[in-house]
């Protein structure tokens, strides 16, 4: 049973560029959340998708957007990249919207903005 998978593993971009990160949830899961983890910090919630809609959003600017596809996979898009966007981007999946559903995290995508 495949867990949460993310691609690519690493990515290097320059300021002002746009980036798309991808996530496939654990088999049987229909809810995907995205987190940003700066070096030495805890993950910060970006947003959550369920039934192809954004259900919950953290304190991130509109430069961060997402999408969920009918097969439950998801994309995170970041426009106009800033140096401060350099971080590990984590995808987590769960089943349904219950607040205590266990979230399973992927290995993350390491984004470096130069």
């Amino acid at each position, binding site marked *: 049973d495949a867990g949460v998978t993310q691609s690519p593993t690493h990515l290097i971009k320059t300021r002002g560029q746009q980036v798309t990160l991808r996530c496939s949830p654990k088999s049987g899961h229909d809810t995907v959340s995205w987190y940003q983890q700066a070096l030495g*910090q805890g993950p910060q919630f970006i947003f959550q998708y369920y039934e192809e809609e954004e259900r*919950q959003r*953290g304190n991130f600017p509109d430069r961060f957007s997402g999408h969920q596809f009918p097969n439950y996979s998801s994309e995170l898009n970041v426009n106009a990249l800033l140096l401060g966007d350099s971080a590990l981007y984590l995808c*987590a999946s769960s089943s349904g919207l*219950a*607040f205590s559903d*266990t*979230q*399973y*995290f992927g290995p993350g995508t390491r984004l470096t903005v130069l």
Partner: protein
Amino acid sequence: QQQVKQSPQSLIVQKGGISIINCAYENTAFDYFPWYQQFPGKGPALLIAIRPDVSEKKEGRFTISFNKSAKQFSLHIMDSQPGDSATYFCAASMRGNTGKLIFGQGTTLQVKP
């Protein structure tokens, strides 16, 4: 306040010892408190979680102690092993904020052989 404050930032324990990590929160609407373990290059993995209706939960060598009145909770790792060396995060979420986890800053644990 939506913060979860975690301490210590780093911890060194001898093999066989007890590792203790503490977290504190302000928002009484928090209703679910998981602990995650993260190894370098990996995503966080759920270790153990507790709801505020119980004061303690134990799973193997891992125990959560919860003090609702003090708004504090802690992770105890008994008989710590070198394989436990990792970064540990406490987190919290609120009923109604479906699946939005608020994480602490993390504790880097090193267990010396």
